[in-house]
Structures are given as C-alpha cells and as structure tokens.
C-alpha cells in the first residue's frame, strides 16, 4: 500500500506540474487557490477524524494571512519561505493558546467555541481599522520566492508551483501522522473516548496536539491564498468562510488524504462556473448540487472512485 500511494503521489505531482505549463492563467490561479484552500479543508478533516467539526478554521486561515500582511507591509519581509514560516507559526501559537480551552469540548460546543473565536477575531480585524485596514483589508505585494524576484508574467505559475510543493510536503506529513499512534488514537477517541481513558491514554492531549496541527495546516493554506490573491480581508475569519471549508470537507469525503484536495478543486471549479453561468444564483446552484451529492453519494465525491473498497483514513 505504501508503494501505491507513493507512486500515485508522484504521478499526480508530475501531472499537476505539467498542467501548469499548458493551462491558461486563470485556471492556474484557480487551481493554486483551490489547492491552498484544500489544505484548510484537510485541516477540517483532521479534526473530523476525532469526531470534532470545527466551524472556526477561518481563525487560523485569517491569522496567518494577516501575519503575512503585517510582515510584508510593516516589517519589510518579502521572502515567501520566511512568510510561510511566519504565518504557520502565528496560527500554531494561537492554537497553542486557544487549544487549552477548546480541547476540553466536544460536538456542537467545540464547533460553537471554534466559531466564537473566529468571529471574535473577525470583529478585531474589522474594528482595528488603523492596524488592519478594517473591512478593506490589506494588500499583499508579490514576494520573492527562494530569494528570486519573479517577473509579473511568471508570477501566477511560480506561485502555483510553490503551492504544489507545499501541498506535496503537507500530504507526506499528514500521511505519516495518519499512520502514527497519535493518528490512530484520534480515531479511537472518536469511537470511544471512555475506552481511551481506560487505556491510560490522555484524550485531552491527543486532541490538543491535533488541534494545533490542524491550525498550522489551516494557517499554511491562509498564507498561500494571501500570496496568490495578493490581498487579505476580514471575510477570511467570517463564519461563512469556515462553513465553506466544512462544506467542502464533506463534499470531498473523508476516505483519503487526497479527498479534501479533490473536493476543493471540484468546489472552486463548480463555484467559478456557477458564478459565470448565473452570478445571482451560484449559491443556490451549489446548494442544490450539495443536496444531490448527499442524497446520491453518501461517501462524498471521493466515494465515486472508491465504490468497491470502503476505506476510512
């Protein structure tokens, strides 16, 4: 199984890399956006494996994006790799703090607390106009990538490849996590928390660690989106953004590490076409599509390819 996944990954990486060279710019932009958001969706899935639905990944998504905004605009840091590190560290630091409180809760209370923190952050972003630019947000100038200044005509493609590299690395890390004792313990916690306690396991610690990990992942997605779009605004922390991530997580299904990414790409493509098709009813189109998938494909989109083997990641 190990070799199969490795081969598939390399194949996909080559495929996506190659596609970057032939597809039009707007598609590359969309793909980069989708893959970056896919990382945040993956973070939602990580928490779902514990039985927790986070309606507040937007918090880390936004926190990392704004950290990058500050770094570029106020501290003059213009190198992409450094910005990535800053963004991820910002979200991890935030999660390390919040996790102490939130990791004690389950089900809807976890969901609501995560939402509360995200909405509180949204409030801060809107109110602190002088610092954050308020509802207008901040612009993000194109950074240097590995020290190189990228000419404008190559920027989209380069950012796309940056996203691909990050996604590849994260997929590998998450894969290892899933195979690890912690990764399996999380599923055990979802199945039976009492039993985990009666095995001497620390449920709180496992959830805390996973929460922080998910935050880092969400933050990475936020940084990549900020760089790709060139702009950050408070909407990143609004509950509808977080809701979208949850939505896509269920759309893609939870059967594999690739599932959230597949779901994210499908979602962005459909959203884009739905918007082009009818700008005033794209939400309705999405909603109807979602209902269709839920009624006809209980395993999400991913189950289309997994019909024969029911596998849980």
């Amino acid at each position, binding site marked *: 199984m190990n070799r199969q996944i490795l081969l598939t990954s390399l194949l996909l990486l080559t495929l996506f890399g190659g596609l970057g060279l032939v597809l039009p710019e707007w598609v590359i932009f969309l793909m980069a956006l989708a893959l970056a958001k896919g990382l945040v969706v993956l973070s939602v899935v990580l928490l779902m494996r514990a039985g927790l*639905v986070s309606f507040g990944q937007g918090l880390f998504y936004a926190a990392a994006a704004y950290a990058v905004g500050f770094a570029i605009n106020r501290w003059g840091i213009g190198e992409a790799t450094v910005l990535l590190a800053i963004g991820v560290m910002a979200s991890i630091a935030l999660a390390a703090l919040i996790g102490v409180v939130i990791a004690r809760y389950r089900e*809807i*209370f976890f969901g609501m607390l995560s939402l509360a923190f995200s909405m509180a952050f949204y409030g801060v972003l809107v109110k602190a106009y002088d610092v954050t630019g308020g509802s207008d947000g901040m612009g993000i100038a194109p950074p240097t990538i590995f020290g190189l200044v990228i000419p404008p005509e190559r920027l989209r493609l380069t950012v796309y490849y940056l996203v691909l590299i990050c996604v590849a690395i994260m997929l590998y890390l998450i894969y290892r996590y899933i195979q690890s004792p912690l990764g399996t313990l999380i599923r055990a916690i979802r199945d039976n928390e009492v039993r985990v306690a009666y095995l001497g396991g620390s449920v709180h610690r496992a959830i805390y660690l996973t929460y922080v990990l998910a935050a880092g992942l969400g933050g990475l997605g936020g940084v990549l989106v900020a760089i790709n779009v060139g702009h950050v605004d408070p909407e990143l922390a609004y*509950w509808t953004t977080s809701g979208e991530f949850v939505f896509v997580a269920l759309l893609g299904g939870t059967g594999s590490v690739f599932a959230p990414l597949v779901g994210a790409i499908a979602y962005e493509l459909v959203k884009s076409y739905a918007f082009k098709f009818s700008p005033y009813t794209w939400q309705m189109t*999405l909603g109807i599509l979602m*209902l269709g998938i*839920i009624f006809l494909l*209980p395993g999400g989109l991913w189950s289309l390819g997994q019909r024969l083997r029911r596998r849980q990641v």
Partner: protein
Amino acid sequence: MFTLPLIILADGLVFASWLFLISLGLTLIYGVLRILNIAHGSLYALGAYTGAALIIAYFDGDKWWPPGSFVVLLGAALLVGLVAGPLIERGVLRRMYGRDPAVQLIVTYALFLILEDGIKLGFGVDPYYAYKPFGLLGKVQLAGVSYPYYYLLLLIVAILAGGLLWVLINRTRFGRLVVAVIHDPEISTALGINLPVIYVVTFTLGATLAALGGAFTAPMIAVVPGIAVEVIVLAFAVVVIGGLGSPEGAALGALIVGLVRAAAVHLIPELELFTIYLVMTVVLLIRPQGLFPQVEVRRI
C-alpha cells in the same frame, strides 16, 4: 445617577427580546429533532421579507386601519412557517434522520444557500423599507432617551411567544409527547409515539417562530439580502449559552447577552461585537453544557 443603569436595562431588555425571539425556534427544533438548523436564519429572513412586503402593500393607499399592520406581521410569520416548515421537513429533512449529524448540518447549510439566492430571486436585491408600524405606537421618554413603544411590543411578543410555548409544552398532551421525544427519541418510538407527526409539527412551529422574529424585526431595519447570515450565528450562540433544546435557557441566555451587550455599548463600546462570544465562552467555561442542559445518560 440612575439614568445610565436604566438605559442599560431598557436597551438590554430590547435586545434580549429580539435575541430570544430569534433563538426560540432554533432551540426547539434542536431539542426535538436533534438537528442544528442553519437554514433557521433563512426562515427569519423569509419572515422579514414577507412581513415587509405585506406591510408595504397594506399601507399602500391608506385604506386599512394602521394597527392592523401588527396582525399582518403575525400573518406573515404564520404564512412562512406553515408553508416552508412542512415543505422543508417533509421534503428534505425527513430523508436525513439517522444520518451522521455532520451531514445533517451540511444539508441545512445547503438549504440556507438555496434560500439565500431564492430570496434574492423572489424579492429582488433592493432593500425593503416597512417603517410604518415602527412609529405607529409613539415614543416614550426614558431617562432622557426616547424609546419607541414598538420595542415594548417586541418585548410583549417575545414574552407571549415564550409563554405560549411553555404552556404548549407543559400543559398539553402534545407538549408531553414532545418532552418525551426530547429526552429519549428511541423509547418514545417504542412507546408508540408517532414520531413523524411530532417532527413535522415541531419543525413547523420552530420555523414559524423564526419567521415571527423576522417579521417583527422588519419594521426596525432595512430588509436586505444578508440578514440571515448575521442572525444564524447570534441565534446559535444564544442557544448554546442556554443549553441546547432548552427554551428557558434561551430566555435566560438572551437576557444575559442583552444586558451585557447594552452595558458594553454604553461603557466599553469597543467590546460590542464581542459580547455575545464573550458571554458564551464564559458560560461554557463554568457550565460546559450551557445553562440548562438536557439529561445526560450514564454510559458505562
């Protein structure tokens, strides 16, 4: 010296009644159907739009007796509730019972998306102004601030809604069945309670309450697309504070949030947007299941 506390109390009560009205239906539906209805905000919006549209038509030409507009608002709520309620419950939700709660949540989210655009299609994107009922009852001076009597009406509507629901739950046979279902759906079925009927009636009731909140809010605001989005998250917070499925909890939660927010607005304005989340976090730290949680079953 008493003016500020009085103002805070008055403001707090007004906001509390509004919060209570918008969350009562949500907590009822959760308690019975165990579904967190994200489309709740959309039902509120439908109530607001329908109310506003009917009010505008009602006052067109000055033909009708103005105070009758309040009945019109009530009628709008009933219209939305009695139509959308059974349609949603029977058409969509019924197929989702027994599925993973996360999937049920997504279904209501999908419904919310559909209704968001549906409302735009049906009512257009321009604001609806239905101010007439708001000024109808005149104003009163309280500690130097003028409060429209409409706020008092809102408070009365909230108390009536809560009171009638209480009577329904505690003094009628239907109410007893509902309580049984809230405490244990499985045993209720075993006892022969007709679950599908309870579900559709309860959902319709919850939808009507949501629409009621929207209808009576319409004269106070500009009814625009997007009001659903704000209401959903506020209603959820109040429901969580009060304890899922507890109308009394929603009342107390709404009161606490209302008063704290009013205090914040007048004392520390920067905190205004945060108050509800602050209250929720504090309450959950002290009582992890909310103010009046439902029964917990011993697992081992």
